[in-house]
C-alpha cells in the first residue's frame, strides 16, 4: 500500500482540532494523516508529491443542491446576462441586450447545415434588461425555417419563434390561457409562461420531455464543471431515476476517470408515497463509491419570483394571489412517516414561509410516531423562513440548505416586487440559521445559477445583489462560517460528514486545489479565487487537463 504525501502552501482542514497544516498523506484514496511532514513520516515509506506546493488545499467542496442537467444545457446556446464558464473552460460573455442574444443565436444558426434542425437556447433573463419581453418576431430574425426556443434562467418560461408555435399548433388566434400572452394580432407573442405550456412546444425546439435528467454526455460535462469549481461531491436534486438513467449513471460514474461523487435524490412524482419509499430503499442498495442513491426529494411549493411559492400573511408584495401546493399535506405526512421508518432521508423544497411552516407542522407528529433522532431531513431553499421557524427546525432536528446565490441574482426583484424590503432582507437567513444551531449548507441550484461554491460563499458573506446593494446586513456570515457551509455543512445535510467535508484521518481524499487562500483574500476576493482543480478519492484532476 503506497503512501503519497502532498505538500501545500497551506492546508485548510475545516477540522477545528487542527485548522491548518502543510502536508497531507493519502493511502488507498483516503486520508491517512494531516500535519507537518514530520507528523506523517512515522506512517512509513512515502512518495512526496509537490504538485501543490504553492497551492492551497481545502476539503473537496460540496454542492448540496444542483441538477446534473446543466451538463446537457451547455450543448444549447448560452443566452445568459452574466459571464459563465462552460465545461470546456470557455467563458461565454454575458449578453446585455436582446440584440446581442439575437446575434449569438444567428451565429449558432449559421453553423447548422440542416435548415429545419431545432435551435435551443438557455438562461435568458429579461429581468436585467428592464424586463423587455422577447417576441417571436425577434427570434424569427434568426430563422423562419427552424424552430427556436430559449429557456429562461428560472426554467419556468420559454421564448419561441413562429416556426416553433406553428409546429406545436399554437400559431392561431383564439387562445385563452394565462401562460400564453397574445400580441395585437391576436396571435401568441411566443412567450410560454409555465411548464405545462412549454411541454407541447419543448420537443419541437430540442428540449426533451425528461430534461431534468442529464444524458450520458451531459453527466460527463457536468463533472468537468465540478473539477473547474473545486467540487468533489454534488447532488442531483430532482432526479427521476428510471432504471435506464440509474444504469447510465452507475456506468459513467464508475469510469476510472470520473471525477466526482454524485448524489441523486429521487423526485416524488408518479408514485404513491409507499412506492416511493420502497423504490428508494431498493435504490439505496445499488449505491457505489461515486453514486450515492437512497434519498428522496419532495417539492412542496413553487418559486417566489414565479409567484407560485406559498407565503404566509401578508402574502405577495404586489398583491398576487398565493402560490400553489405541489403535494398535499397528507402526502407530506405519509412520506415522512414511511421514510423515517425505513431510515430514508427526505429533502423538501420549500420556497415560501408557509410551505416551510407546513413541513414543520407535519414533521413533529411523524417524529413522535417514528422516532429517529438523526433523521437530518433538510429544507431546501427555505428562502423566507423567519427566526421562529429556524428555532423549530433546530428543535425538530432539521437541516437547512439556503439559496445564497439567489440573493445576488434576484434579491433586487424580491425587494422591489415579490415580497418587499423587510422580507427581502431576511431571505436566505444564514446568520439566523447558525445562531439558532441549525446545521446549514448554501447552494447554487445549478443550472438556475452557476455552480461555484466559492462564489456561493461570497454571496452569503457579502449579501450583495446584482445592482450592488447590500441587502440584509444582519444576515451576513463570516468567511470561516461560509467555508464550513460549502464543506462539512453540506456533507452533514447528506449524512456524509463521516467521510467527506473536512481533511482528517479516515476521510476520503477529496480536495479542492486553490490558487489563493480564501481566509486571506478578504471578503471581496472569495469569488475570484483561482481553482486549479480537484483531488477526488486520491485521484488528481487538473482543470488544465480536462
Amino acid at each position, binding site marked *: 500500500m503506497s503512501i503519497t504525501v502532498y505538500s501545500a502552501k497551506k492546508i485548510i482542514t475545516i477540522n477545528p482540532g487542527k485548522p491548518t497544516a502543510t502536508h497531507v498523506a493519502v493511502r488507498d484514496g483516503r486520508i491517512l494523516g494531516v500535519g507537518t511532514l514530520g507528523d506523517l513520516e512515522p506512517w512509513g515509506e512515502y512518495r512526496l508529491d509537490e504538485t501543490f506546493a504553492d497551492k492551497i488545499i481545502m476539503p473537496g467542496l460540496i454542492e448540496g443542491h444542483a441538477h446534473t442537467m446543466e451538463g446537457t444545457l451547455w450543448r444549447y446556446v448560452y443566452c445568459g446576462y452574466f459571464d459563465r464558464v462552460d465545461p470546456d473552460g470557455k467563458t461565454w460573455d454575458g449578453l446585455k441586450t436582446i440584440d446581442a442574444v439575437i446575434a449569438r443565436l444567428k451565429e449558432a444558426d449559421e453553423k447548422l447545415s440542416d435548415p429545419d434542425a431545432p435551435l435551443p437556447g438557455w438562461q435568458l433573463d429579461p429581468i436585467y434588461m428592464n424586463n423587455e419581453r422577447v417576441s417571436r418576431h425577434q427570434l424569427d430574425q434568426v430563422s423562419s425555417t427552424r424552430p427556436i426556443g430559449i429557456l429562461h434562467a428560472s426554467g419556468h418560461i420559454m421564448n419561441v419563434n413562429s416556426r416553433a408555435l406553428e409546429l406545436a399548433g399554437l400559431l392561431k388566434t383564439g387562445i385563452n390561457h*394565462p401562460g400564453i400572452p397574445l400580441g395585437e394580432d391576436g396571435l401568441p407573442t411566443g412567450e410560454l409562461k409555465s411548464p*405545462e405550456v412549454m*411541454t407541447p412546444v419543448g420537443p419541437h425546439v430540442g428540449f426533451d420531455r425528461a430534461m431534468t435528467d442529464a444524458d450520458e454526455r451531459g453527466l460527463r460535462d457536468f463533472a468537468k464543471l465540478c473539477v473547474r469549481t473545486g467540487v468533489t461531491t454534488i447532488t442531483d436534486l430532482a432526479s427521476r431515476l428510471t432504471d435506464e438513467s440509474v444504469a447510465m449513471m452507475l456506468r459513467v460514474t464508475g469510469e476510472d476517470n470520473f471525477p466526482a461523487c454524485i448524489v441523486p435524490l429521487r423526485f416524488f412524482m*408518479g408514485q404513491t408515497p409507499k412506492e416511493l419509499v420502497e423504490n428508494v430503499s431498493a435504490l439505496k442498495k445499488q449505491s457505489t463509491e461515486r453514486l450515492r442513491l437512497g434519498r428522496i426529494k419532495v417539492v412542496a411549493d413553487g418559486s417566489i419570483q414565479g409567484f407560485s411559492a406559498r407565503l404566509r400573511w401578508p402574502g405577495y408584495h404586489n398583491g398576487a394571489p*398565493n402560490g400553489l401546493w405541489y403535494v398535499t399535506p397528507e402526502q407530506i405526512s405519509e412520506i415522512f412517516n414511511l421514510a423515517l421508518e425505513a431510515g430514508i432521508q427526505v429533502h423538501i423544497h420549500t420556497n415560501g414561509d408557509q410551505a416551510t411552516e407546513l413541513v414543520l407542522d407535519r414533521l413533529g407528529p411523524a417524529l413522535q410516531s417514528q422516532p429517529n433522532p438523526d433523521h437530518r431531513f433538510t429544507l431546501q431553499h427555505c428562502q423566507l423562513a423567519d427566526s421562529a421557524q429556524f428555532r423549530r427546525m433546530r428543535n425538530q432536528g432539521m437541516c437547512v440548505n439556503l439559496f445564497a446565490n439567489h440573493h445576488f441574482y434576484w434579491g433586487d426583484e424580491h425587494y422591489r416586487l415579490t415580497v418587499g424590503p423587510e422580507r427581502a432582507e431576511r431571505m436566505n437567513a444564514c446568520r439566523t440559521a447558525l445562531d439558532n444551531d441549525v446545521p446549514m449548507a448554501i447552494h447554487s441550484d445549478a443550472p438556475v445559477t452557476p455552480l461555484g461554491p466559492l462564489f456561493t460563499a461570497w454571496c452569503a458573506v457579502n449579501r450583495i445583489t446584482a445592482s450592488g446593494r447590500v441587502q440584509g446586513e444582519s444576515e451576513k456570515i463570516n468567511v470561516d462560517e461560509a467555508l464550513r457551509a460549502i464543506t462539512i455543512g453540506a456533507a452533514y445535510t447528506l449524512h456524509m460528514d463521516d467521510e467527506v467535508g473536512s481533511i482528517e484521518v479516515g476521510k476520503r481524499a477529496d480536495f479542492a486545489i486553490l490558487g489563493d487562500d480564501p481566509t486571506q483574500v478578504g471578503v471581496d476576493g472569495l469569488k475570484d479565487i483561482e481553482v486549479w482543480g480537484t483531488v477526488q478519492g486520491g485521484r488528481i484532476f487538473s482543470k488544465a487537463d480536462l
Partner: protein
Amino acid sequence: MTNLEIPLPVTTIGGYLGSGKTTLVNHLLRNANGLHLAVLVNEFGELAIDEDLIEVKSDDIISIAGGCICCSFGNDLTSALIDLGKMTPRPDHIVIESSGVSIPGAIVNTLSLLEGFQSNGIVVLADADSVMANANDKYVGDTITRQLADAEILILNKLDLVGVTERTGLENWLLEMAPGAVLIPAKHCQVTPDAVLGGVLSPGKGSPGNHADELFDSIVLEPVVGVNVENLARELASGPYGVVRAKGFVADHDGKRKLLHIVANRWHVSDVSNDVASAIICLGFRGQLDKKALGKCLGSTIPG
C-alpha cells in the same frame, strides 16, 4: 361512422383528498356501458382502480374490462394527453382525475392548447362531512375554494354523513363558493354517468334517450335545420329549461355541421366535418327539465 373528426371530450374531476374522486372514477368505469373511457391519474395508488375491474396491469397503464384504460401521468399531463390522442383505437372519452391540490381550471386551460381535445366539463367533488372545515384550513383552504370556484358540476358527496339542516346550509354555502355550478347531491358517488360525462350520441355507443334514474331525466330532440347554433347553445345554457348538460350535432344556417356542448351555464360550439344526424340530448333534474319548453325552443317535436 368514425369519431376521428370530433374533438376528444375530456372531463376533469377535481376535489380535495377524500372527496371521492377515485370512487367516482370506479363508478364511471363500472358503468361505462360500451364507452371506451381513458382515465388519467397522477399515480396508481393502492386503491386507484377496483381489483375486479382490472384485466391487465403494467407500470403506467391498466386495461379494464369493457375496453377502458387507466394511465398514470406523473407530473406531465400534457405529454400523457398527446400520447392518448395518438392512440389507436382512439378512446371515446378522457377522464382526468386531478390531484388533491390541483386547480381544475388550470388543467382545462392547458387542454385548450392541445389540438383535438375539448373540455367536457369540470366536475368537482365536495365531501359533505369535511369540505367546510377544509376550506378554512390555513394551508389548503384557498386551494379548495379555488377548486370549488372552478366547478361546472359540483357533486356534494357523502351526504349520508350529514343531517338535513346541515345539508341545507352546506348547499347554500357551496353555491356561493361555486357560482354557476350545478349541484348534484350524492352518496358514495352514485351519480348517473351522463351527468359527469355528458350524453352519448355516437350510434352503437350506449343508448341515447334512456338516462332516467331517480334524480335525472333526459330527452333527445331533433332540432330544425338551419338555426344559429351559438344562439341556440346560449339559450339552452342560460334559459329556464333545467338543462344540466346537453350535447348534440346541429346543422347551422349555412348548412355546416356543429357540435354543441353545454355544461351548467357554460356552452361551447365547434365545427365537425362528419355527417351525422342532427340530435341533441339534454339532461336535467327530474321535475326540473322542462321538456315541453325545450321542444318549443328547438323547434322540434319530442320523438316517441
